[in-house]
């Protein structure tokens, strides 16, 4: 079980940190992949959106859409930001 999953779409519009809980899961999609987050945070990125933009994101942070669906399934809820 994961907590809230945040799907972040834009590099310049991010939920404020007080909204995020320790166990929350951040998934960067669309242009948000242009702004990878710090190493110590719990985040991943949509692999296809990364590759489409030819951005460098560590391989182990990149998820297929099927893997994103698996995380969504386990989430308590999903917030698309």
């Amino acid at each position, binding site marked *: 079980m994961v907590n809230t999953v945040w799907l972040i779409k834009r590099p310049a519009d991010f939920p404020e940190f007080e909204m995020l809980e320790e166990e929350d899961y951040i998934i960067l*999609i669309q242009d948000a992949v242009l702004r990878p987050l710090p190493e110590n945070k719990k985040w991943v990125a949509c692999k296809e959106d990364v590759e489409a933009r030819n951005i460098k994101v560590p391989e182990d942070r990149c998820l*297929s859409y099927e893997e994103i*669906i698996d995380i969504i399934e386990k989430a308590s809820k999903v917030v698309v930001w």
Partner: protein
Amino acid sequence: MNLLIVMASNPYSHDFNTVVKLISAALNRNHKVKIFFMANGEYCLLREEIKNLHEKGLEVYYCAHNAEQRKIKPESWAESSSMYGLAKLMTEADKVLIFD
């Protein structure tokens, strides 16, 4: 899982691509997926990709009021609904994602 997607973005947007790929992946994983089109999302009803996903199992609903307002006449594979209909779909859904 019973996944519901509310789509209010236009069909030539990043959201359209994201929604099509997410639905496709969810159907691959044998989830039950429904989509509800409203506002500028209604124009997506004119794209082949949605019809193709419907043929693979996606259930398609739309806000009849917004469709009429935009002079969109959806084909019969899409089901006419309302904001109250959306509320009912939310009741049955395990997860609700909105794109606008």
